[in-house]
């Protein structure tokens, strides 16, 4: 069966305007709205696999990618999403320029706001930075990662990847493993997955789990084999190599031995288990290449593909809420 990509009118019809002006947290959405966004994204997946990938839904709109932290996949994913929808996309990485001259986030925001963008996509190293920015600008703000707080579009693309692999998210057992403490991906995923009815476990050494994490509505495990026992999805998190300092974990080799995912440990998961990773991976630290590269098990490439489609859905939905004067 050939699946045909939806046309612009069809997409417009199916788009539910985003419930808020900004997309800062997965808690801005309810399960119905998430379902609608993922459905919309499915259409974009088909579109993105065609030769003609453009749909002029955001024609005339300006999207600014404001990345205070280095990023390859998220930034290019938002850029491609914007361009495929016909928006003008500007990438800014203020790390090297004005910020070092003493310009604050707010100064930058006010400057950019004066250029009349429609959507600002921001990544910043401080928790709450996207929320702060949203209070000072007139356009829509999309949080592409704020410190250790949230990365909501990542959680959406992860749920889309799971839904496509299993046909549902509800009822899946998902083990999120590794450095949960410093991970915005983990926070957004815990919130979204529990909202969608998945059973979530977090697995890692106590030094890399947040205080009172059990009260997030998740099961907590310190042993990887135990934590992924019977899991449908094993989501590995990146271990920042600087965590070796400050006595969080002793060494890469010990970390890999105890919390790195290899074939032997993966055998404890449910049959048909799928492995995910938000990237970039530290091969041989949190995940063995043998597992990461096995397309029968790994969803890592799908995650990247879903990233563009989900961001197109988010942009379309946000734009549908924008003023159309």
């Amino acid at each position, binding site marked *: 069966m050939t699946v045909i990509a939806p046309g612009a009118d069809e997409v417009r019809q199916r788009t539910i305007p985003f419930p808020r002006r900004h997309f800062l947290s997965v808690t801005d959405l309810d399960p119905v709205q998430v379902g609608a966004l993922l459905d919309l994204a499915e259409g974009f997946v088909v579109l993105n696999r065609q030769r003609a990938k453009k749909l002029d839904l955001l024609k005339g709109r300006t999207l600014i990618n404001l990345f205070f932290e280095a990023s390859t996949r998220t930034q290019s994913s938002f850029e491609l999403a914007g361009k495929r929808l016909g928006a003008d996309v500007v990438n800014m990485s203020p790390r090297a320029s004005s910020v070092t001259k003493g310009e*604050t*986030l*707010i100064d930058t925001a006010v400057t950019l706001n004066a250029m009349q963008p429609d959507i600002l996509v921001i990544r*910043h190293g*401080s*928790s*709450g*930075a996207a*929320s*702060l920015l949203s209070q000072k600008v007139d356009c829509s703000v999309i949080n592409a990662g*704020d*410190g*250790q*707080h*949230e990365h909501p579009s990542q959680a959406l693309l992860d749920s889309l990847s799971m839904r496509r692999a299993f046909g549902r998210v509800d009822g899946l057992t998902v083990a999120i493993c590794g450095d949960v*403490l410093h991970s*915005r991906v983990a*926070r957004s995923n815990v919130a979204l997955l529990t909202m969608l009815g998945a059973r979530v476990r977090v697995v890692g050494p106590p030094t890399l789990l*947040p*205080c*009172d*994490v059990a*009260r*997030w509505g998740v099961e907590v495990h310190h042993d990887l084999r135990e934590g992924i026992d019977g899991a449908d999805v094993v989501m590995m998190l990146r271990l920042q190599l600087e965590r070796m300092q400050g006595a969080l974990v002793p060494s890469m080799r010990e970390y890999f031995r105890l919390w790195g995912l290899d074939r032997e440990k993966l055998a404890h998961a449910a049959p048909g288990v799928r492995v995910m990773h938000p990237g970039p991976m530290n091969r041989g630290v949190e995940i063995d290449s043998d597992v990461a590269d096995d397309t029968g098990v790994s969803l890592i490439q799908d995650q990247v593909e879903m990233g563009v489609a989900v961001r197109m859905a988010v942009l379309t939905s946000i734009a549908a809420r924008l003023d159309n004067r």
Partner: protein
Amino acid sequence: MTSRPVAFIGARLIDPESGWDGPGALVARDGLVADVIHGGRPGGLSEDFRVIDADGAMLCPGLIDLRVRTGEPGAEPKETLESAARAAAAGGVTSIVVQPDTDPVIDDPAVADFILRRARDIGLVHVYPAGAATKGLNGQGMAEIGLMAEAGCVYVTDADRPIVDSRVMRRLLAYAGALGVLVAHRPADPWLTQGACATESEFAGRMGLAAEPVAAETIMLERDIALVELTGARLMVDQISAAAPLASLARARARGLPIIATASINHLSFNELDIGDYRTFCKLVPPLRAEDDRLALIEALASGLVDIVVSAHSPAPPEDKRLPYDEAAPGAVGLETLLPALLTLHHEGRVPLARLIHAVTLAPARAIGLSAGRLTPGAPADLVLCDIYAPRLIDAARLISKSRNSPFDGRRLQGMVRMTLVDGKVVHQSR
């Protein structure tokens, strides 16, 4: 210049020294309290008296705030001694102790002298400097405590910075103790608090904020208690903030150790959830704690375990606050909201009024040896007349302080200062 003698009649007098809370009158002459009449009116007042009918408003000693940061010298756009003094007068605060973490640091009698000279020129409220405990607040070499005390410093402290080296702390306590100088110290383990901007909890974890456990305060306080036991010197615990360190304090008190403690009005009024969506006005040092900790702090204030309440006034302009939470400056202004915020604890029925007033008048006066803070004939006529029931909406934009970083912005409080007198002279009067 002598000011006109004043007689307050029909007031609700609160005298923390005698414990009197009831109707009465007070006569002030030549800058001093001349007479206090419980339950009645003064007789035979001559023509030149200014008679003020308090109409049931509270008359108590002017507040003494042991922890005020200004920006002078070094950061005058944040706050000058004059703007702080005007804010204090408006808030019913008649004596302030300024912190030594200025630029230059008050670690030298000359800087203390500068502060006192400026305060004399401004002439609104009493300003006393606290001297640095260590040179340049570096936590290593002892500052000239004796000379600074002679110059007028009322206690020594390294302000927000903990004195990490236990040997330095021990020697400091022993040395200052022998000179009769009070040492204040904010207990915080430097490693557990490194980089933290919130209290470790489910909330901070969800918000992705780097956090410190309450144990950081308990550990350092336990060390300080052991050093007090070793040296026998007096210690003022600066801004105790949680239930666990309060338990340590209670045990130390039970052993009869000479330790007093302050709490900031912010930690008595807010908990960590007030940070909400990364409100930087609620970023404080120590960080706001859990609600259980706040309630324990209130209980400790009611029981007298916590002796003193401070405003922890710390001005920060928008450019220091309008930043992502982890980058924003900590601290809140508080001189103008100290009294109404404190009165909330009375209106909510949590702490008796006389006990609250004691914690901001007589208790701090005794800690640093001032004759103010009481309604006794011969005491300085530092007074505040306050309508404790008058409702008000705190609007940060209307604060007198040069910085408007008030976590009380938008809060409804009760308590309007009608008049503030310093040495018998009116320094603030509400319209």
